[in-house]
């Protein structure tokens, strides 16, 4: 379906509003064209020296019809803005829910700055058109039609000199549209790039500063800023030729009207009143014609904004509920991987036929070198990604058969990168359980050893995280994230290196406190620190995407394989410290 059609479908959700707008426009056009008609009568009256009373009557009538036209104008102006804003509400809503439902791979491929630009800048471009220009456009079209009808009924002789140049206006409008369209696409795209460049610059600020790359970054921004400037200039140049063209054509029209109309009046074929009326009509429509240029610019801008919005909405999420998926309210928490492989790109598998069964209630430590597939393994359980081949099951049910919402309520993850929302500490911890009691929140914060530092904040649990973004250390953020997951109370809990920035002493205390938390659920601990292994029943060792070893510490040490190697590496570095200390 073309985007224009889809746009109209959004509009037609408000049939009542649209019909009221149409009615308002019809009334306004009709009454507004009555004013020149009265001026016609007044002119004729004056030239025939009619009584002042007659003139008074028609002059007053002008006020009367203007009042009616004012009501019409209020109706259509108010309703186009209302309906337009409702449409924007709908479009924004559809875009938001669609972005929200996308798979992780979608977010991997699209930068945050770009997505935000779509959800804000592109929607804004659409909003500007539907609330500011759409009404104008509809009104102008109706007015033009009204003008033609009025002139025909007035005196067909005046039609040609009156609106003879209108087709040229329409043609230039079309040409303008064709010429400008690619530029407007560029405007929207470059705007998004500008957002992304700036976002990256600011988020990586410490790196920029530390390496004194400020000039380099400024140059990078300047490049896109300049490009955006140039595109806007190109647009402006064409617009400068086009926008005055409308009033110019009308000006020529007036000249032509006066030439032929003047001759007709001299010959007595047309009354002076008719000429003045036609003249008045052309003057009345001049501002509308001028706006037409702006309206078209905004329409083009909006249409490319819509294009980007619809493209986003149309991207089907790779991971979604299958039609006959089931709701799994509770689970024992047994996880099985059957011959599971995973790759983002063909020929570059990140997991190679992994087979493993994790019993309900077990605590598994997952170790392995950087890039060996530990996180990828864990990501498949809550279906952040789908296995390329093989099957992941919970309690024997393929995760693809479980409704996403219920699956993800069963599985809680503390990911490597901590993301906290700009809201209070309390709301951040209660993110997964809205409306949790403060007691529960504090209890989980205590286990995560977050309570102790939260209490030192002047506003305690009500401290807005955004306000303290800089003073919350990496370790503190991680501890809030742990509390968040604990409060969520899932059957299956995954910690992905979630204490890497926490100091050793605190980590030790968190682990001790977590013993009770892991007791009655299945827990996966991805870790670089072997100290964490104390908590684990079994250890899964990954190497280059393969699950190479799986078993208890004693089993694996006995094997003298990869685990032993890793274990000794850490042991060696630690014991070296001891030796240097001895």
């Amino acid at each position: 379906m073309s985007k224009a059609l889809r746009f109209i479908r959004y509009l037609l959700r408000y049939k009542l509003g649209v019909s009221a707008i149409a009615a308002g426009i019809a009334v306004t056009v009709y009454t507004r064209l009555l004013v020149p008609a009265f001026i016609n009568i007044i002119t004729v009256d004056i030239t025939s020296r009619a009584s002042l009373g007659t003139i008074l009557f028609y002059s007053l009538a002008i006020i009367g019809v203007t009042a009616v036209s004012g009501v019409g104008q209020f109706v259509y102006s108010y309703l186009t803005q209302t309906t337009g804003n409702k449409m924007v509400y709908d479009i924004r809503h559809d875009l938001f829910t669609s972005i929200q439902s996308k798979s992780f791979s979608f977010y991997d491929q699209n930068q945050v700055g770009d997505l935000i630009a779509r959800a804000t800048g592109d929607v804004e471009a659409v909003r500007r058109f539907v609330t500011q220009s759409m009404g104008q456009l509809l009104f102008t079209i109706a007015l033009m039609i009204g003008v033609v009808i009025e002139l025909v009924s007035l005196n067909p002789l005046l039609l040609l000199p009156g609106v003879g140049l209108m087709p040229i206006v329409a043609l230039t409008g079309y040409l303008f549209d064709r010429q400008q369209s690619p530029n407007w696409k560029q405007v929207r795209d470059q705007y998004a790039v500008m957002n992304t460049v700036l976002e990256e610059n600011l988020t990586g600020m410490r790196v920029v500063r530390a390496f004194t790359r400020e000039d380099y970054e400024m140059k990078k921004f300047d490049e896109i800023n300049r490009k955006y400037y140039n595109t806007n200039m190109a647009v402006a140049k064409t617009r400068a030729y086009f926008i005055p063209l409308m009033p110019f054509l009308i000006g020529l029209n007036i000249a032509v009207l006066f030439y032929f109309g003047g001759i007709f009046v001299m010959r007595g074929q047309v009354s002076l009143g008719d000429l003045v009326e036609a003249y008045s009509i052309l003057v009345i429509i001049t501002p509308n014609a001028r706006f037409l240029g702006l309206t078209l610019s905004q329409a083009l801008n909006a249409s490319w904004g819509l294009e980007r919005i619809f493209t986003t909405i149309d991207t089907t999420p790779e991971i979604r509920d299958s039609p006959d998926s089931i709701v799994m309210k509770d689970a024992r928490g047994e996880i099985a991987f059957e011959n599971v492989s995973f790759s983002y790109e063909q020929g570059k598998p990140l997991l190679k036929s992994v087979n493993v069964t994790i019993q309900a209630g077990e605590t598994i430590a997952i170790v392995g070198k950087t890039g060996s597939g530990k996180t990828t393994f864990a990501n498949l359980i809550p279906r952040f990604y789908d296995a390329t081949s093989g099957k992941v099951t919970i309690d024997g049910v393929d995760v693809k058969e479980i409704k996403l919402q219920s699956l993800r309520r069963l599985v809680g993850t503390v990911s490597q990168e901590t993301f906290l929302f700009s809201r209070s500490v309390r709301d951040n911890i209660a993110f997964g359980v809205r409306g949790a009691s403060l007691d529960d929140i504090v209890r989980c914060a205590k286990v995560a050893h977050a309570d102790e530092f939260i209490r030192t904040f002047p506003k305690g649990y009500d401290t807005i995280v955004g306000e303290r973004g800089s003073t919350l250390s990496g370790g503190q953020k991680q501890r809030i994230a742990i509390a968040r997951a604990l409060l969520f109370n899932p059957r299956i809990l995954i910690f992905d290196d979630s204490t890497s920035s926490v100091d050793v002493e605190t980590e030790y205390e968190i682990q001790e406190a977590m013993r009770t938390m892991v007791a009655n659920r299945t827990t996966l601990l991805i870790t670089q620190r072997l100290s964490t292994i104390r908590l684990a029943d079994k250890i899964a060792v990954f190497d280059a995407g393969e699950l190479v070893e799986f078993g208890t510490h004693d089993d694996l040490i006995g094997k003298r394989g990869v685990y032993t190697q890793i274990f000794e590496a850490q042991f060696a570095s630690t014991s070296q410290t001891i030796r240097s200390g001895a």
Partner: protein
Amino acid sequence: MSWQGGFGGPQSGTGAYIEDQGPKSQSDWTLIRRLVKYSRERKREVAYMVASVAIFSASGVLGPILTAYAIDEYIFPGGRPGDDVTGLSVIVIAYMLISLVTYATENIQTYYMATAGQYVVYKLRKDAVEKLEKLSLRYFNNRPIGAIISHVTNDVEVFNNFLTFQSTQLISGFTSIIGIAIVMFFINVELAIVALSIVPMLALLIYLLHGRMKEAWMSTRRSVGALTAKVAESVAGIKVTQSFAAEEADEAEFAESNRRNLTTNVEAAKWSSFVGPMAQVIQSFGIFAVFYVGATIIYSGGLEIGILAAFYIWLNNLFRPVQQITQFYPQYQSAMVGLDRVLQIIDAPVDLNESPDAIEFAEVRGEVEFRHVSLRYKEGDPNALTDVNVHIQPREIVAIVGQTGAGKSTFVNLLFRFYDPDEGAVLLDGHDVRDLKFQSLRKHMAIVLQDPFLFSGSVMENIRYGNLDATDEDVIRVAKDVGLDDFIMGLPQKYDTLIRESANNISTGQKQLVAIARALVANPNVLVLDEATSKVDPFTEVLIQRALDKAFSDRTTFIIAHRLSTIRMATRILVLDHGRLVEEGSHDELLRKDGVYAKLYRIQFQNSVAPRPSE
């Protein structure tokens, strides 16, 4: 995972607005004056524009005079049809010429307005980003990055839209009013007074509604700000939302915000829709008066019908700008707010200044001294660092340990002069860092941060970021040193693989390795590793350690680490606790002291070698 780092950094905030979307900090008048100042570099364009606006307005006034002349002299002279077609032709040709002049001047004014306007927009953005690069990290502490981005892109864009779409119309509209009034009085004083009598009524209307309209539109600005904030944050945190199956709650919050935005807009629409028709009605009083009074004057022989028609046309033209004011008012308000926001960034005082006689360092030995250094991040906060005194000789390897929040990163922040201390001084080679050029200070130092932020670009570019002069060979050598070469060679485009695109193929640990390579390629005299290997497995860590052992030999190194294994090379250990330097010495000395360090050491040592026996 492509945005990791992007939103994980300690000062990154979350990409949301939380700030007050309240009133502007400067009056409209100040803003416009500053705008004029900004356009100074486009003086010529502005002059052309002003000149063309003047001619444009004059020609707009002139048109109705010609048509009046045509009617009164040729078409209908003395109340009867005329017959001088040649005379009429001359007027018609003159009218065409005037239309042409109108076209040309409108073209010129639109074009030069865009030239000057787009330049101002470009310059505002450029200045804002340049300022952002200069502001200290303190500035970013309470400002979410999403809000700052929005000020530089979206708010300026709103201003830009007003400038390009509406401002010339407003300007030429106002000059027309003056021109029309003058001509009216010149032609017929009585009728002019009658026609212009409605102007005070209009002024009154605008005055009465101004407050309400402004209020209504400000509340739409606020609601759109809140909505943008919500959207930005939701998008940034979407992975968390999905993993907690919290989409519904998130959507409810969004819908609430979206609905509030709708409501405020509808409320504002009421006012803006009201003003236009009201102005029309007032105008119709003017039309009524002009025709009625005009007719009486004509009957007494003081006026001709063509002039009356001209008055009617002028009255119409007089109303155009008034209509536009009401139509453009919201955009004007938003534009001024947008301008104010970006100027606030541009005006923000730089709290970390390079002193004018700052020294340039050619060579750095790497001697670092903290003299009674104290710092707190915010007024009212506890000190992040209190009275720290330490003197480090060149080529020392210094480990900094302590609990989360003890002040380790603050120590580094001061060394790099991301902040200035509230008390005391930080010295490099005996010079206060405040007396050094930034470039010179940081050129000789390199840091590997906890969060290995990488830029979009190739692996090669990312490593080279540390030293733009590094050759490909330098980059590859360093990558080999940190054990990254094998991994990179396995990527589809090897060193040219784009980081963002391959975000899926690069783990957090590998990103840390790239960050280490980036620091090493700078070949710094002072190297800081802030939890640089926290996400790397022990096996790889040993490899890195070996690479670093070589690197440590000829430079001063600071290592912040939680894993004590990482600091085995240290010649000196600084133990921080609640912002104070509580212990200092070699590993042996500190163990003998049996203090904080010894305790930390015991905990870790016991844990790492004694996993829980399997049951």
